[in-house]
């Protein structure tokens, strides 16, 4: 067959039957191949002819002896691996390596020996594996025709895959010695041992381990070579993960015992990074997520709670501004749970604790003084005054301090949130909730916030730049944002605003209006409606005052003696006028008709006439207790024995009292009862005004008999001819103008009033909802009501129930008897 053509034969030769292989003797041909395979395995292939080997294998297959060839090759490999290679590997096994698999934690002693022995074992195995791959590569090339024809037709794994399986069975899955564990178990233990050394800080030959891992990744449980049947996944990885879990469990416990939380976090983070690196450099990247999960479980998930609660935990970090450590805690817990439950819980607790401290401190400051004024009430005169003002100051100070502390608390945790918690949304929500809890558990929160604004409006913003003012307003709004009972706040704010406006205490009306517009943005239109009405009244009043002045000139000509009138006409519903009343007098005061002297009475009726011309059908009620008057008064010996005229500013009541003495001879006196009868001033107001006119040292225009602090029935008053003062302008203080924290009684009243208005709001909401829905279940009605009202306050469920009850009584609603769940029907 050397040449079919070219010999010049003219006739075509009839070819022999069974061309290509009939003349092939299997045994001889195989002998040739076997000889060559031996050469290949001993790295001596360079003299072999590829063509000759290929041809021999080709001929065997053509002769239909593919199966025999396949089995011969497999046997050859099995023998080679089982004898030559395995002996070489087993020779590397020292006693210490063999005992590794027994599971006892390896002793430190002999670790150097073990490391060297382990490395040499790994190196031999790696070498064997690489040799095997190279040899089998060459064999596969030679046996290409067999693979293509025999293996494909007979559904056999390629000879390469078969040989890899042989490596697994002959080397890895066979016991090193009689009765000892399989080599793969030893290999696993050796790798784990080396990794453990690496974890303990020793330098290990990562490349060597990686090569062996490569081998395990390249081998499969069966010859089908399914992806999930890799030996690495089946045999090595689970053991590795289990061993790592044990290690990190102990490591975590040790760390918790030995170091503080900050160090623990750093260590945990380092370990995670280290294990990730190890997967890349030493093991397989596919293990990265699994080992991370193990470390996270052992070092974080199972330890986080303990870690956060230790002495050096989150509380300590917050107290000492350990932002980096806090950041670590956050980062670590974020790894295991996106909601960060332990950290947020701890942070919330800290906020609540700190907030409670602030609240307690505020209560302490505001409650400390009470013994003093009580004592002063009955005590000596000189001391009572300063004490009283001091009390007011302290209350205000408490309010200011509380607001500032709350703001500082918020700023502090905002800062932590930004620097340490990566501005995380979940944490933010939790922190906000805690802040809100802190502010809302404090019963005086609404009042204090209003006071804070009040104080700033009156004094705080003086000499401040616009930016600073903006900042102050913003701070107030921030606290307001957390407040649930906005209706209570509104009550207080109205009261404080009312005083500021009427007594002209506001530094800047502009700023007041800014505040209102901020509130409008924050709390909505309806909230500021009444407040805005107050400003409107003020503007209208200015116009009225000017209008009346022109009117008076027009009707009765310019009369220098006429009393000048400045008037504020206030819409009764919008202004909380009770703020000016001293308690217990409301009922009477409404009906009391004050007696005005002629000149004043003329002005009063004049204005009433003017007003009714402009606005028909409106009734004016004079709030005499809130007015003040400027009077010119001459005292004969005021300036070093010579007469002097003073400008006195005093309350309307004081003016009425003083005017009585205008018409009275200097030596005559009037009793309390006479004054009362002539002016009709309510008892309480009368007493206080008399006190300031006859007792207060700087404004003692009247002489009282007997000389004592208390005004008692029968006391007599006369004009003080000997009054002397160096200043021209004198202000008579009657009612303390300062806003102060309410007394307990006042608070109860405010609360009661508040509850009443809440009742109305609830009823209104319920009726609104029912009118629209006609029928509704109880629980739905509750939710909708709460939903509607939450912008104003957080309604109490009990209160809602009572209101519903009351509405049923008044036949707005009725219970539906036939409904499956408790429901109501609206009665039109």
């Amino acid at each position, binding site marked *: 067959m050397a040449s079919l053509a070219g010999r010049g034969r003219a006739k075509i030769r009839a070819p022999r039957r069974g061309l290509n292989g009939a003349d092939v003797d299997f045994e001889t041909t195989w002998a040739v191949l076997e000889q060559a395979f031996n050469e290949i395995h001993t790295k001596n292939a*360079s003299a072999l002819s590829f063509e000759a080997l290929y041809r021999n294998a080709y001929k065997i297959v*053509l002769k239909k002896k593919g199966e025999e060839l396949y089995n011969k090759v497999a046997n050859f490999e099995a023998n080679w691996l089982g004898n030559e290679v395995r002996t070489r590997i087993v020779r590397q096994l020292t006693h210490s390596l063999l005992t590794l698999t027994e599971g006892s934690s390896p002793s430190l002693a002999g670790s150097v020996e073990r490391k060297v022995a382990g490395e040499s074992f790994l190196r031999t195995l790696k070498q064997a594996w690489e040799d095997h791959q190279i040899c089998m590569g060459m064999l596969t*090339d030679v046996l290409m025709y067999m693979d293509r024809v025999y293996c494909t037709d007979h559904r056999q794994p390629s000879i390469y895959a078969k040989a890899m399986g042989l490596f697994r069975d002959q080397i890895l899955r066979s016991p090193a010695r009689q009765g000892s564990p399989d080599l793969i178990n030893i290999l696993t233990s050796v790798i784990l041992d080396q990794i453990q050394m690496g974890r303990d800080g020793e330098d290990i030959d990562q490349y060597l381990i990686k090569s062996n891992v490569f081998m395990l990744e390249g081998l499969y449980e069966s010859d089908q070579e399914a992806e999930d049947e890799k030996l690495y996944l089946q045999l090595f990885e689970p053991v590795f993960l289990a061993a790592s879990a044990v290690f990190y469990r102990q490591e975590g416990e040790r760390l918790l015992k030995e170091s503080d939380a900050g160090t623990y976090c750093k260590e945990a983070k380092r370990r995670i990074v280290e294990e990730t690196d190890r997967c890349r450099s030493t093991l397989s990247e596919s293990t990265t997520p699994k080992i991370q999960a193990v470390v996270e479980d052992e070092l974080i998930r199972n330890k986080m709670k303990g870690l956060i609660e230790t002495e050096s935990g989150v509380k300590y970090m917050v107290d000492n501004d350990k932002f980096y450590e806090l950041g670590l805690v956050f980062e670590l817990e974020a790894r295991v749970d996106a909601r960060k439950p332990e950290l947020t819980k701890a942070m919330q607790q800290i906020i609540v604790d700190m907030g409670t401290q602030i609240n307690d401190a505020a209560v302490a400051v505001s409650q400390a003084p009470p013994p003093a004024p009580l004592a002063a009430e009955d005590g000596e005169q000189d001391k009572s005054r300063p004490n009283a003002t001091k009390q007011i100051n302290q209350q205000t100070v408490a309010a200011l301090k509380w607001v500032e502390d709350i703001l500082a608390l918020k700023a502090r945790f905002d800062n932590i949130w930004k620097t340490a918690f990566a501005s995380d949304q979940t944490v933010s929500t939790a922190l906000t909730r805690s802040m809100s809890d802190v502010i809302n558990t404090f019963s005086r929160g609404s009042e204090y916030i209003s006071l804070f604004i009040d104080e700033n409006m009156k004094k705080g913003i003086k000499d401040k730049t616009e930016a600073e003012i903006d900042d102050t307003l913003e701070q107030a709004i921030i606290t307001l944002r957390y407040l649930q009972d906005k209706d209570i706040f509104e009550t207080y704010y109205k009261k404080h605003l009312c005083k500021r406006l009427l007594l002209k205490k506001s530094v800047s009306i502009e700023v007041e209006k800014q505040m209102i517009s901020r509130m409008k943005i924050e709390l909505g239109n309806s909230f500021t409606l009444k407040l805005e009405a107050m400003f409107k009244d003020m503007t209208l009043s200015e116009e009225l005052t000017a209008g009346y002045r022109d009117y008076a000139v027009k009707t009765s000509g310019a009369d220098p003696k006429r009393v000048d009138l400045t008037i504020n006409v206030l819409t009764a519903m919008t202004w909380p006028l009770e703020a000016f009343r001293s308690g217990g007098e409301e009922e009477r005061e409404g009906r009391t008709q004050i007696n005005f002297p002629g000149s004043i009475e003329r002005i009063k009726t004049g204005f009433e006439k003017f007003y009714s011309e402009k606005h028909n059908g409106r009734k004016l009620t004079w709030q005499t207790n809130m007015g003040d008057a400027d009077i010119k008064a001459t005292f004969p010996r005021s300036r070093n024995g010579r007469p002097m005229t003073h400008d006195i500013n005093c309350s309307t009541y004081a003016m009425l009292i003083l005017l009585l003495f205008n018409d009275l001879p200097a030596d005559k006196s009037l009793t309390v009862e006479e004054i009362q009868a002539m002016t009709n001033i309510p008892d309480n107001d009368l007493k206080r005004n008399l006190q300031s006119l006859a007792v207060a040292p700087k404004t003692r225009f009247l002489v009282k008999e007997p000389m004592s602090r208390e005004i008692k029935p029968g006391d007599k008053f006369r004009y003080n001819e000997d009054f002397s003062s160096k200043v021209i302008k004198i202000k008579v203080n009657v009612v303390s103008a300062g806003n102060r924290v309410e007394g307990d009684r006042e608070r109860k009243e405010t609360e009661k009033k508040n509850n009443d208005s809440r009742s109305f709001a609830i009823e209104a909401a319920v009726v609104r909802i029912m009118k629209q829905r006609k029928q509704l279940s109880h629980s739905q009605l509750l939710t909708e009501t709460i939903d509607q009202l939450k912008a104003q306050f957080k309604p109490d469920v009990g209160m809602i129930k009572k209101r519903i009850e009351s509405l049923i009584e008044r036949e707005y609603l009725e219970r539906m008897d036939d409904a499956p769940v408790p429901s109501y029907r609206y009665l039109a």
Partner: protein
Amino acid sequence: MTAMASTGNTAAANSQQTKPNDNLYTATQDLLTFPRYSDLTITCGNRKWRVHKSVVCQRSPFFAKACEGGFKEGSSGVINLAEDDPIVVNELIRHMYAFKIDDQAALPWLGSLVFMVHVVIIADKYDVPRVAKLAETRFSERANTDWATDDFATAIELIYGSTALLKSELPRCVVRVALAHDHVVFAEGKRNAIRAVADRVPEFATALASGMHHKIALTAQAVQGLKSYQCKHCHNVAFEKNMPANLNIYCRSCNTFYPESGFIVSTVLN
């Protein structure tokens, strides 16, 4: 025989004329006659080809592995194909460079059909399926006209003698051609080359008989207006009524359902 030769020549002449000399195709072709950059030598018998690894290794894994592996050929740069026929090897290499084969290259020593069979064998040996395919096509074309020659008879014997060809198209091709002329082949009393081969090669005889049976059956069924479905998996033939194309068809001998594409469907006319 003469007529065949002349047609072949014209085809060769035509193909040469239509190829201009300055494109990639001819450039590749020229490489073989211009061996300056050759980096591999193939020897066979007394012939020698200076070839290029980039060409031959890409076409045949055998050459690739011979050059890559750690064997003698890798370092020597010479591959000796000890037991092949140079004239066949030449055809293999010609196709690697020119994408064509010449079925008359072996004349007059080897008939075209026998020659093509040898080309198919060598293409299978060195795993160059494109050459095998082309040679099979050539064989099939030529067998249609040359069925009455000794060349055809020798080719049949050769085909059935080589285990490498049993899976190729060739055995089916020769049976088809022989049956197409059954009236001549099996004519009473007349000896002919194909009959002689059938006498010597029992596998061929069996194939002929089976084909004959099939043919008769086809004719019979065609009368009844049925279609024949030959299973591509077991080559069993069944006759069915025209089946909807989207329905899987049951093959009795495989005991399996296949889509229609799994069958060779033929409509037989009367």
